[in-house]
């Protein structure tokens, strides 16, 4: 970024020009020609700002080292590790089942999809089958998770733009009904620890399906309200359209996944590509963006929620009776044969994958989490260059990160 350089009002040493120099003689101690480096960047005029780690807009303990030319971003380097607890090492030192509750703490908004991704990888590693009813429960819980993640993201994004309170509180009100459903099903609102290898932990409590149907039936009304409030809001449009554009080719090359890559117009949804679980039975569409800017990322998520409601209605209608876990699967003393497997699914934030290597012992030899939030941040600098520092906050908000998953 080399924009036209305005002549400085003050000298390079920061003194007021009118002040007499110590050498006296009344000579002004500043030069009128600014010093410029070989790259054409004005020397000594870049302001380095350390945004975070304790900053309300960074969604956790995340830091960005930003170099600013005026208000324009010239350089941005994300700094990680404030929440690092070496999740993967802990996974290697505990049993396969022992890691299940710990996956809740990765992306703590979406514990049920984390559970499912881990169960999926283990099922691939050990060749386990999942009963039909459990597959339906998994789809229902995963889509509910997607709904509450995307509503929250909508609220947080608007909060980052300065729309303090209202959208976020509306979103949290809706999230509450979904968390109530999780609580009555799993016993916990956020740390659900619900999936097991070859099924789920417990069956649906009586009356749960009716409650879920009610919540899903009500949800489109909230979406209508949310969209009426925001979609054509002048401030939202001014702050998001044409901001943080991510070109299609860069998005693919940088392994960006989830709503981020679909907002750039890439039709890649793992629910459609891999058809894991029973996603081939549902009729739903994949919303795509055109411009790849922040507005498209917001809109793709809104449209995805409508499709999730669609999937939920079908799943809640078709769910069969039957067992919820394969009785042949040993939970304690579970030792898969030596080998490796990579399992992945479409988490609300992107592709969540687990890579496991077994050496035949009760602990995995290698336990790796492929975190979508961290990898989606690879192109944060590319999206922010040339924008003003206030837009950095909005662009970061549209990436949708959770530090529990970024730092692990």
């Amino acid at each position, binding site marked *: 970024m080399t924009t036209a350089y305005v002549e400085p009002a003050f000298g390079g040493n920061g003194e007021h020009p009118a002040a007499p120099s110590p050498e006296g003689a009344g000579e002004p101690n500043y030069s009128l020609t600014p010093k410029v480096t070989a790259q054409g960047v004005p020397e000594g005029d870049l302001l380095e700002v350390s945004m975070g780690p304790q900053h309300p807009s960074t969604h956790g303990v995340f830091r960005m080292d930003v170099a600013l030319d005026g208000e324009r971003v010239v350089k941005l380097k994300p700094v990680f590790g404030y929440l690092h607890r*070496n999740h993967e090492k802990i996974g290697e030192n505990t049993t396969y089942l022992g890691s299940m509750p710990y996956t809740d703490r990765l992306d703590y908004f979406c514990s049920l999809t984390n559970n499912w991704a881990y169960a999926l990888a283990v099922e691939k*590693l050990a*060749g386990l089958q999942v009963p039909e009813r459990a597959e339906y429960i998994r789809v229902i819980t995963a889509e509910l998770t997607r709904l509450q993640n995307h509503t929250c993201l909508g609220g947080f994004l608007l909060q980052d733009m300065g729309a303090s309170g209202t959208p976020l509180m509306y979103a949290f009100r809706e999230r509450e009904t979904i968390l109530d459903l999780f609580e009555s099903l799993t016993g916990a609102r956020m740390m659900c620890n619900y999936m097991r290898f070859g099924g789920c932990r417990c069956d649906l409590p009586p009356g749960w399906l009716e409650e879920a149907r009610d919540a899903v039936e009500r949800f489109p009304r909230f979406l209508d309200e949310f969209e009426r409030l925001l979609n054509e809001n002048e401030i939202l449009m001014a702050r998001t359209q044409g901001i943080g554009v991510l070109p299609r080719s860069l998005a693919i090359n*940088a392994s960006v996944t989830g709503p981020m890559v679909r907002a750039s117009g890439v039709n890649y949804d793992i629910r459609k590509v891999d058809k894991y679980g029973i996603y081939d039975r549902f009729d739903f569409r994949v919303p795509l963006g055109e411009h790849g800017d922040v507005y498209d990322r917001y809109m793709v998520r809104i449209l995805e929620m409508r499709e999730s409601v669609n999937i939920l209605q079908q799943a809640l209608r078709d769910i069969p009776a039957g067992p919820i876990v394969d009785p042949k699967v040993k939970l304690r003393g579970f030792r898969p044969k030596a080998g490796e497997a*990579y399992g992945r699914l479409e988490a609300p934030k992107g592709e969540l994958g687990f*890579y496991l290597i077994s050496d035949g012992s009760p602990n995995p030899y290698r336990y790796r989490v*492929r975190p979508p939030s961290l990898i989606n941040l690879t192109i944060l600098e590319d999206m922010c260059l040339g924008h003003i520092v206030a837009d950095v906050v909005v662009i970061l908000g549209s990436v949708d990160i959770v530090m529990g998953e970024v730092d692990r």
Partner: protein
Amino acid sequence: MLESLEQIKSRLESAIPGVGAEIIANSAPSAQVSLLVDNRHALAVAKFLRDDRALRLDYASNVTAVDWLDSVTKETVKTKKLIDGVEREIEQTTEKTRAGFLEVVYHLYSMELKHGPVILRLRTVNRSDQTHVPSLTPVWRGAEFQEREAYDLYGIVFDGHPDLRRILMWDGYADFPMRKDYVEPDDYEYEPTPHDEVVEKAARHYGTEAKE
């Protein structure tokens, strides 16, 4: 449909002369076999996999590392031999030692053709002083942070990486915590109600003289 790894390997060998490729078996039911490539040709192989019309593996989904320690495998072979005119069965045990190494694993998919995964592996010479592999970040930008993580936690040096720094641990940290032989630092703190583990830690912390 994605062609089999054998087909990819044979096409690779004809496209890049002198490439050392080997298929690593996987006995798990997932049957995800992988392709081990020599370091000298790794970048050319990556470019081939990305740009080939039938493969178009444009998306490096997962990049990670594995630490393999020195290992000893015992093989017993039963042979029949004539000893003093009587045929007897003799067991012969041979020990194979495999020197440890660090391994980088790439899970590649295609966003354009929607297939995958093709699993690519690179290996370092050993675990101590020759821990270099070529970086594939110039081919797939998505490997940038993940290779940094492998450098940070395993100590694998990626030649040609644009910005190889520690990512999760802090600068100046000496060890590589994900290695199998990593020893945790002595972070003993006094506890008023020590239990077994803490007592052990305390003994290690103060040394044997201060024990009484």
